[in-house]
């Protein structure tokens, strides 16, 4: 199972990167009333493939004055750290690299190692822009991990488990679910969207929003892309990278996007379960879930997980082309003065609600 999950994850990340880079360029173009890539392949579909081929053929330039060991090693460390985050992420019921009881905890523990990689990139390159980028990135990622951790805590308070498989199972049809967190209204037989964590327990709606924003900062996405601010820092921490190594940094960034999007879906949006509820005789949820244990269940799971994740990724992309970049002080203000108290409040609310109404 582990080997299969490993290969599957690697394939999914690579395919996803190819598709999403294209999607991002197209979405950016559409938001800006342009057409985006059109020339390579039908509708420009092969543009990313062409870009990847170009990237792989490029010379791997290592600056003379750089710390060569750090410089060579850093992209691998970053990619491995983020890739390891996928170990505890299930792709379908039962299809998981490692069914860890402390899944979420493990994911964030491993993924935060990526900060070390970023620092190696910035330090090893011996370039002022790279160093600025790395310093900014570290400041940002470490700061935002605190509200992010508190968001996770708010979810875990409600779910009572760190295992993502269990969290997914809790959001299935016929698992205990209350409409808007009120135990008096039992809607377990409805399933669908009513079994989603954010609907079962509405405190998680602001938590989900907060989680989404902080994860944007975690993966250095706009409007929190100050680590690679093109207009200020050339390309930020990966200024000196080219060819395959640059490709790996690029891939890590996109893999991180996928990771947090998947987590968002698992924690708040009903994991791989159908969003369509059973309404009396119209059993939309049953029709779109497949039979338990049958291959159709797996197929539907993958389908719904993919749709939901891609929707989240789509909004990650849309926000990038909507908002201007935050200044460093604004970024810190937002994190320490706004998100931190807010997330603490949400953890408290979540715990109190759970204690008095549900438990």
């Amino acid at each position: 199972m582990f080997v299969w999950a490993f290969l599957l994850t690697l394939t999914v990340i690579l395919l996803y990167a190819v598709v999403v880079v294209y999607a991002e360029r197209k979405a950016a173009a559409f938001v800006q009333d342009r057409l985006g890539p059109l020339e390579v392949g039908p509708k420009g579909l092969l543009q990313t493939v062409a870009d990847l081929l170009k990237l792989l053929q490029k010379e791997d330039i290592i600056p003379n004055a750089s710390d060569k060991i750090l410089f060579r090693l850093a992209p691998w460390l970053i990619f491995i750290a983020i890739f390891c985050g996928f170990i505890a992420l299930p792709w379908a019921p039962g299809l998981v690299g490692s069914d860890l009881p402390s899944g979420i905890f493990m994911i964030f523990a491993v993924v935060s190692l990526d900060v070390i990689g970023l620092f190696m990139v910035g330090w090893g390159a011996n370039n002022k822009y790279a160093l600025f980028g790395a310093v900014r990135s570290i400041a940002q990622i470490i700061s935002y991990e605190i509200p992010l951790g508190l968001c996770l805590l708010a979810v875990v308070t409600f779910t009572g488990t760190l295992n993502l498989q269990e969290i997914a199972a809790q959001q299935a049809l016929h698992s205990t679910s209350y409409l808007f967190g009120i135990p008096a209204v039992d809607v377990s037989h409805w399933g669908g969207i009513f079994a989603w964590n954010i609907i079962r327990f509405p405190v998680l709606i602001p938590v989900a929003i907060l989680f989404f924003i902080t994860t944007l900062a975690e993966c250095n996405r706009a409007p929190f892309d100050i680590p690679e601010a093109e207009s200020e820092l050339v390309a930020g921490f990966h200024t000196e990278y080219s060819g395959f190594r640059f490709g790996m940094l690029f891939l890590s960034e996109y893999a991180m996007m996928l990771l947090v999007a998947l987590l968002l879906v698992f924690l708040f949006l009903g994991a791989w379960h159908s969003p369509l509820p059973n309404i009396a005789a119209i059993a939309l949820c049953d029709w779109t879930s497949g039979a338990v244990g049958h291959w159709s269940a797996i197929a539907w799971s993958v389908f719904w997980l993919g749709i939901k994740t891609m929707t989240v990724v789509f909004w990650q992309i849309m926000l990038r082309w909507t908002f201007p970049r935050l200044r460093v002080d604004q970024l810190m203000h937002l994190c320490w003065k706004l998100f931190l108290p807010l997330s603490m409040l949400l953890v408290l609310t979540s715990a109190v609600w759970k204690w008095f109404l549900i438990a």
Partner: protein
Amino acid sequence: MAVKNSTYRTHFFTIIGSLLGAVLLAWKHFRSAIHRKKIMSIDDTSYFHQKDGVVTTLYPYESIPVPDNGRYRLHNEMEDCIVCDLCAKICPVDCIAIDPIKSTVEIGKTSDGSTRRIYAATFDIDMAKCCYCGLCTTVCPTESLTMTKAYDYSEFDIRNMVYHFADLSPEESVVKRKEWDEAQAAKLAAKAAPVATEEKPSAVADGEQPVAKPKPFIPKAMPPKVAIPVKKADDANVTPSAESKPEETPKPKVSIPPKIKIPLPKKKDDDATKGETTE
């Protein structure tokens, strides 16, 4: 700081509102990208009514129509040109080079009825120098010189930016020049014998006009540059004319041959020899 913080706090909901507004705006544009703005000329009355949609024009495949008064590449309709040299004179950047040869007979009529009496051994327009002011087209008495709508004519070699409109081939121009010179010589001989008639002085005066023409472009030292590509393009288009010039007018054009002959050996000795042989 205190003031700043209070503004942050009081404007919290305004900020959230404007952020949501931004997202909605982005989404609106994303959605409206399913249709594209129609490619239409600025003359179209509905040009400014298209508010939404993709603005990109896929240029090589489609292009926005050029308005009728668009000023782009020059074109000279030699059939209508009387080689009056007005365009070359008014050109502020001197991009038009004309080498006229008077004809002994009337060549024909232009479409507006003017008589054509002068051949153009050279009528080169260097579009790389052109500033698209359109003055040459305004002064053109027969409207033979016009600005067309063609705007995409970039070249890899700048020398290809010179457009040749001459209506004589090099060989023909040699013949025509000789004809004119012989006619002039005959007239002079006739003049020497009897007293001058009315026609002769006017003809001489006319004959001097083309002589005066090369003067303005000689000091620029540009003709050689123009002349070289011409040779490359269609072998020795200008060389015979350039070297036959001294034959026709000995007085001012003595200064021409060195200036023209210097660049010849520089770039192509073959051309120089060819020019000599054709001569």
